């Protein structure tokens, strides 16, 4: 799977270690085939009879575990931030991309749960790993990988993301955002209102139903701070909000703020950066 999956897997492992139970880790080789992978895991579950099966709360982790749950006709709790084993087990899981938490009881054994990204900080772990090679006959599997043609920084991986919201006002208005992003070697993002207005493609959208980012710094310009947008940038280490509204709700999630119009502030920042570098 991908590096993001690996990172969240490590986080999942860390959470698992906090359960103070013996842990086995499974690594699966071969092309991604969710149902086939789940079947192998099911067989392993039969063999090892664990009290819980955890997986990373990524697209693929959720998918594989959902297949496992369907096969075992057992409940599955996705994107948990905390887990307590028991009869029933209790979990706290995220809703609304992280803006709301749910405490739930899970009636079934083993507990099937995925661990939400950024719920815990990954610690190094030294474990025995069982390697499985699922059989692929008849499985739904990747037929072709189409590498990305676009150059530039990928939104999901960027260390710096500069986003524009409604306040940008037009597609052309994004020029100042692009300029700042380029100066910082970052990616350009946008809010859902911007993609609905047709100013940027959906691939630039940061949010619960767009791309989830985890940069060192997220600069949100002219974005008011709807929960579905914030759900996409919860992974950001720092958030700088630039907004003319002193009461904007984004400030509740921001580390830094500049109160002003992005059309003036952003070019000023770019100019200041150039000055700092040129000088």
């Amino acid at each position, binding site marked *: 799977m991908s590096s993001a999956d690996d990172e969240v897997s490590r986080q999942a492992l860390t959470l698992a270690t906090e359960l103070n139970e013996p842990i086995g880790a499974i690594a699966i080789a071969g092309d991604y085939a969710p149902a086939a992978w789940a079947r192998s895991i099911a067989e392993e579950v039969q063999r090892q009879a664990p009290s819980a099966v955890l997986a990373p709360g990524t697209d693929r982790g959720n998918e594989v575990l959902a297949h496992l749950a*369907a096969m075992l006709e057992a409940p599955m709790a996705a994107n948990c931030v905390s887990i307590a084993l028991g009869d029933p087990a209790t979990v706290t899981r995220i809703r609304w991309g992280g803006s709301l938490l749910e405490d*739930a009881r899970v009636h079934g054994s083993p507990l099937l749960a995925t661990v939400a990204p950024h719920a815990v900080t990954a610690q190094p772990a030294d474990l025995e790993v069982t390697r499985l090679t699922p059989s692929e006959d008849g499985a739904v599997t990747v037929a072709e990988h189409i590498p990305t043609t676009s150059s530039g920084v990928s939104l999901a991986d960027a260390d710096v993301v500069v986003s524009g919201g409604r306040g940008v006002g037009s597609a052309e208005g994004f020029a100042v955002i692009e300029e700042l992003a380029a100066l910082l070697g970052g990616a350009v993002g946008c809010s859902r209102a911007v993609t609905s207005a047709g100013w940027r493609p959906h691939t630039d959208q940061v949010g619960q139903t767009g791309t989830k980012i985890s940069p060192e710094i997220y600069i949100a310009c002219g974005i008011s701070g709807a929960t579905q947008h914030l759900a996409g940038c919860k992974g950001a280490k*720092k958030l700088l909000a630039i907004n003319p509204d002193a009461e904007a709700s984004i400030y509740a999630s921001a*580390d830094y*703020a500049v109160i*002003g119009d992005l059309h003036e502030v952003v070019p000023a920042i770019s100019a200041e950066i150039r000055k700092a570098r040129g000088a």
Partner: protein
Amino acid sequence: MNILVCVKRVPLTGGKIVLTEDARAISTRHLGFTVSPHEECGAEEAVRLVEQHGGSSTVLTLGPPEAEEQLRDMMAIGLDRAVHLVTAAEEWDPQATAAAIVDAIRAEPEPYDLLLFGNESADAGNYQVAIRVAHALQLPCVTGVKGLAVHDGQVRCEQEVQDGRDAYDVPLPAVVTVKEGLNLPRYPSVPGRLRAKRKPVDTYTPVRRESRLEMVRLHLPPGSGKQVEVLGRGPEAAPAVVGVLRELGVV
């Protein structure tokens, strides 16, 4: 082609989430509602596929009586008929939801070639209803699809992954979950809305299985404890901003 799209009625939460007194639901007083975003794209895709390949499309929801509004909205963009599994106000867990949807599909006169779901619902985000339905109906399933094309009884599905796209070729009938970005949902015409008012909605009372993922209560995440630092107003704040960026090592 005979296509089914499953949708869910979710509230539009705005900038803050407020809970009911018993903390078992979001307070939806003064909130608007919509079809969950991924599913809207699924509905649009169904309409396009029928426009391309002929056939018919059905929209289904498991939800309270008010969810009829979402069914009518989907029929306004071109879905031909609707199935409403009417529930009381309390939400159902994903296993029970999937089981009820499977019951409804089995009760339908014609089998479906393609069953479209959202990758996850905006509110509960359980990521599993479609996969459970696929297993119950013994159909292949691809999730997180952002590109879809049907030809010769097969569907090619594209997922976005880290360094590009992964494509799956799956024989129909199949279950596919889609993500927003698959397409741009059309804006319904008023004649479409008026026709939708008269399109058939089959209502059923679904059988509810016992809840095994049992929601106890909801609560807001702890405040970040962040105290936002105002770096300044207007362009004069630029030097302060660059100072921060320097500290973070990005300048």
